[in-house]
């Protein structure tokens, strides 16, 4: 059973009186543990695809099965629960809550899931240690460097042990060295078994993935695989 099965997905936006086909007849199978990059010019539908995969958006037509379950028919709150338990998001602009500390930001998904505070603290402490953020636990986002912020965001995205990690330009706001560090972190998570899908403009980053999807005008125009272990050094 594939982790993700997209079948004839269509997504149309109405802008004024014209119809924009953001996704047209997209079909895709992604196995658990894969490492994908999605590339393509602006407006090619990469972000729409990512939003659909993350259940933030609904297709106009087609079916999306996540872990064998058709999630397109779920209502808003059921989708929220699937997002909470199975999907992690990493954003270009980090999206940390500015008034909360690093530890509190990481704990957000656990809090939303209704986990008791004591258990939450243990999990967050472990995550802080895993991501080398122990000394930054009480700092607010504005007191953190860009790399640290993205690490907090990744810690938050993975705290619920999701099956799927969706990253939208995760290194877009970072300098080269920090970007590489974040990329390495994401790849380590993938090695540990999380399915990783990265949307990027950066050809170097895109090239690191074992499977590269190229999009144009809402369609998948390229789907390249390279054998495991052959990624760029």
């Amino acid at each position, binding site marked *: 059973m594939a982790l993700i099965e997209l079948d004839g997905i269509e997504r149309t936006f109405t802008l004024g009186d014209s119809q924009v086909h953001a996704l047209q007849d997209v079909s895709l199978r992604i196995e658990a543990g894969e490492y994908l990059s999605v590339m393509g010019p602006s407006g090619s539908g990469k972000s729409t695809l990512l939003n659909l995969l993350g259940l933030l958006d609904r297709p106009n037509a087609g079916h999306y099965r996540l872990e064998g379950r058709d999630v397109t028919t779920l209502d808003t709150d059921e989708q929220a629960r*699937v997002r*909470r338990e199975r999907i992690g998001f990493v954003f270009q602009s980090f999206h940390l809550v500015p008034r909360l500390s690093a530890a509190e930001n990481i704990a957000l998904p656990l809090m939303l899931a209704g986990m008791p505070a004591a258990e939450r603290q243990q999990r967050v402490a472990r995550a802080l240690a895993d991501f080398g953020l122990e000394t930054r636990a009480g700092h607010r986002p504005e007191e953190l460097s860009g790399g640290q912020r993205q690490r907090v965001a990744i810690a938050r995205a993975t705290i619920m042990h999701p099956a799927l990690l969706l990253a939208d330009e995760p290194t877009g706001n970072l300098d080269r060295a920090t970007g590489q560090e974040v990329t390495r972190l994401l790849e380590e998570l993938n090695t540990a078994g999380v399915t990783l899908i990265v949307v990027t403009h950066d050809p170097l980053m895109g090239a690191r993935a074992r499977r590269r999807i190229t999009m144009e005008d809402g369609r998948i125009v390229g789907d390249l695989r390279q054998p495991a272990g052959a990624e760029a050094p």
Partner: protein
Amino acid sequence: MRAADTLRFATRAATGNPLRTALMVLAMAIGVAAVVVLTALGDGARRYVVGEFGALGSNLIIVLPGRSETGGINPGSFVTSTPRDLTVGDAEALLRSPWVRRVAPLSVGNSEISAGGRLREVVVLGTSADYTAVRQTDVALGRFLPREDLRRATNVAVIGATVQRELFGNTPAVGRLVRIGDRRFRVIGVMASAGQGLGMNTDELVIVPVAAAQAMFDTNTLFRILVEARERAALEVAKDDIAEIIRNRHAGEEDVTLLTQDAVLDTFDRILGTLTLAVAGIAAISLAVAGILVMNVMLVAVTQRTAEIGLLKALGAETHTIRNAFLVEASLLSLAGGLAGLALGHGGAALLRLTWPVLPAWPPDWAVAAGLGTALFTGILFGVLPARRAARLDPVQALAKR
């Protein structure tokens, strides 16, 4: 999300923007404080008046000429048509009832008093020696009217404190001659300062024997008869007796109205209670305004935190989680405002009591509860719309917003 977490999250959100929160709380606090202070003032006035009236003597029955058809007092009670006048004879006859201890006939008119070249407009009250006992008042200097036949017009006068001051200044008044209307009177006493009572300021009265007043105004009718019953419990029996006596004297017609202190008290109590309620209603408008402010502030908060709401949705927050978080935030702001307002209001009321010690300016319990309740209710009511708007945001668009 757990309730405790929702509460903590909302608290952090509210305190995350201290200026906004402080202004919001202030607006709500002013509304609640207005309710508390204004009702304290209104209720204080009510208690003050009721207290003053209570001091007039609670065994008092007031006999008015003319029949009033309605119970209690209305403006008509004081201007009833008079089929048959009350006379001094009627007043004397009332003493035949075993339940009546004293009577004081009242005859009232305007005149001028002059002494030593000074002239003043005064209200002249004609009455009898028992007036002081019935009204539970007394002279400060000299003595009151002598006990004599009600038909005897002795030319003696007792003057009010204000009249004394304005006519004689610091020189003694007792023993001096004054001219009232076209008659000369000897001042035999000065009333103790007592303030308002029965619509007349006793400090500005000139009191003369009832026969003298009637002669002065060329009439033989009475304005009122004040009757003191033997005891409070006998008020009703005494009223029946009075009605009976008057009916016998007035050819079988019951053409007088009997008012007791209780009726007067009840009426004032009711009028001032209604006034307090009205004032509270006006103050409550400021609470409604504060409620709209809560809505405004929360709508701005939703706009400012759109990206955060998008994030929470991406992290798996359900619709009701986000709605509750914003509702709790609005309620917290209102509650804080309400409590601050209570403190402010009680402080204001304490200040009133300090400034006017005679005014028992305590806010009534119902006003405190209503003020706080309205603050919470409006806060939550006006928090619903922003909370629903936040909960309905599209996560993709919300996340795209910076």
